[in-house]
């Protein structure tokens, strides 16, 4: 259901929208943090936060309030809040807009988050390329400090909170939470084995909560509206998937961008109503629903959920484009909601060329720690290159399954699945096109990704 809102994005278009003055005047700035710190106990904050049903916005969709509740005070060690703003999943462009255009929501969310989990310091881990984002966040931190919202006594409360921006140095894997923690500690960004989970031993060996940037930025809105009211804005509130979130749309649409809507929007609404439809009014070919690691959907795919207990049963037999974009709905469809930023492909796009492009990404970004992923991502890319060159045999195409399945479940972190799932997804959905390359019916030199010439569309 299409319901556009502007809780997070109200200040986006305003002059100096990223300043404290605008945030306080237009978006109830820091009212939620003030209320939380001056009238609620940390336990109340966590209980209230659970009612907001904010599913982690970074891709995994874990309920934020539940994650907060895992934090237990340690007798000797401090706790930390770490915010994942290492946005780098291909097709994902939402967190950057928050940092650049509404940085105070991120800082206010950090204050509430720190208080709830018993932390006195939050680190916002921003990928280094986003220089404007870092500058805007530091600017917001400075302004909030000058006003007494951060520091020794935020809002007069004897509960010190500091927020820092930390930067990476160009590694997609640092968006994986344990790899991010290693990177924050000044190490190579290689993922850690779990357990221990961050709530037991995270940053600097201390109890830590890692939240996505959009997740934490939604917290002030939830507390301003009342967490249950916030959750009910969603049309799939009953699936514990609440509130509003940022929906991105990119690729072959007329109006690519980031739109704030109530949870429950469908892909059809995102592509046609918000995205303005496809370039040159072409037909839809396929869509990657939430970042490149989420398996691709074809335009003609329909939901198969005859089981009445399935959360998808209500959409049985309907187009996948008409299913609400939710964590559980999309997981049950054999793909994932991911970061909720859809990449749209028009008819005429070559799916094997898409696969080739993505395998280059995964080969480049595998951190190399686990053999199945390091070698497997290279192997998948070699098969993709051979397909494009016209030198791939049917036997080699068939090994693609085995290689991808050899990565799945055999690596320390989920990057392995993130590589194998889209590879298997493309092969399963476009087997005919892959075979056409093997048979020489299609050639790499004819493969098209763009619609029309560059600069013309």
């Amino acid at each position, binding site marked *: 259901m299409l319901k556009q809102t502007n809780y997070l994005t109200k200040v986006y278009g305003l002059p100096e929208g990223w300043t404290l003055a605008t945030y306080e005047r237009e978006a109830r700035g820091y009212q939620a943090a003030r209320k939380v710190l001056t009238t609620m106990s940390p336990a109340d904050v966590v209980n209230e936060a659970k009612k907001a049903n904010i599913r982690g916005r970074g891709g995994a969709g874990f309920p934020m309030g539940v994650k907060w509740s895992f934090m237990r005070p340690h007798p000797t060690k401090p706790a930390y809040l770490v915010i994942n703003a290492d946005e*780098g999943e*291909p097709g994902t462009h939402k967190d950057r807009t928050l940092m650049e255009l509404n940085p105070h929501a991120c800082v206010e969310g950090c204050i509430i988050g720190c208080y709830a989990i018993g932390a006195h310091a939050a680190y916002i881990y921003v990928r280094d390329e986003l220089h404007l984002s870092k500058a805007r966040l530091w600017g917001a931190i400075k302004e909030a400090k000058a006003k007494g919202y951060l520091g020794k006594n935020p809002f007069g409360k004897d509960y010190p909170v500091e927020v820092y921006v930390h930067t*990476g*140095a160009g590694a997609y894997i640092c968006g994986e939470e344990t790899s991010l923690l290693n990177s924050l500690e000044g*190490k190579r960004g290689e993922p850690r084995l779990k357990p221990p989970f961050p709530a037991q031993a995270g940053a600097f060996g201390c109890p830590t909560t890692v939240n996505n940037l959009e997740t934490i930025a939604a917290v002030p809105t939830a507390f301003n509206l009342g967490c249950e009211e916030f959750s009910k804005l969603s049309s799939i509130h009953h699936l514990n998937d609440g509130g509003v979130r940022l929906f*991105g749309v990119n690729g072959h649409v007329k109006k*690519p961008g980031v739109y704030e809507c109530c949870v429950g929007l469908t892909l059809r609404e995102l592509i046609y109503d918000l995205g303005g439809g496809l370039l040159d009014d072409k037909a839809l070919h396929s869509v990657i629903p939430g970042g490149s690691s989420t398996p691709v959907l074809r335009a003609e795919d329909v939901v198969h959920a005859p089981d009445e207990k399935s959360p998808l049963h209500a959409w049985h037999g309907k187009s996948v484009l008409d299913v609400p974009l939710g964590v559980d709905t999309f997981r049950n469809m054999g793909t994932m909601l991911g970061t909720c930023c859809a990449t749209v492909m028009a008819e005429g796009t070559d799916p094997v060329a898409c696969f080739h492009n993505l395998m280059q*990404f995964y080969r*480049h970004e595998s951190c190399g720690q686990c053999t199945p992923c390091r070698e497997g991502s290279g192997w998948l890319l070699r098969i993709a290159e051979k397909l494009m060159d016209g030198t791939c045999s049917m036997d080699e195409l068939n090994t693609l399954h085995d290689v991808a399945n050899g990565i799945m479940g055999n690596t320390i972190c989920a990057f392995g699945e993130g590589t194998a799932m889209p590879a298997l997804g493309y092969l399963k959905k476009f087997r005919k096109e892959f075979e056409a390359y093997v048979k020489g019916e299609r050639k790499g030199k004819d493969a098209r990704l*763009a619609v029309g010439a560059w600069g013309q569309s």
Partner: protein
Amino acid sequence: MPFALTPERERELAEILTRYPTKMAACIPALHLCQDQHGYIDDDVVTWVSHRLDLPPAHVKGVVTFYTLFNQHKVGKHQLWVCRTLPCALRGAGEMLDYCEKKLGIKAGETTPDGKITLRTAECLASCGTAPMMQVDKDYYENLTPADVDAILERLQRS
């Protein structure tokens, strides 16, 4: 002369160290400061950082070689990163990269003979809604047309 940070950057590093419970955590920020000053990270820089932060040189070297943005060799005065990943490719990034290569007379990964511009491809820069795009030094340039790229390249070549 062995490498050392300028006093101004050294003050910045001292402030950065106050943010973390360990010195090691300042490793990546310190390397960024060094690269801003020196252009790339050679063994002199690695040695300096390892002394300054009480880390084994092998640790610092390991960090440098892990992250894409640390240059291990001298690079051009300006860094030009063209995003090549799928969402940008769908909007013509492939053609845009070819155009840059032709105009500059170099391939991605190379530096112009006058040492002014290093052209590279980047993996997703979180700018998919405003594709195609490129990063020039610290700035993003989005929704690019051939005319925009002409203007960017001319400005860089004149600088």
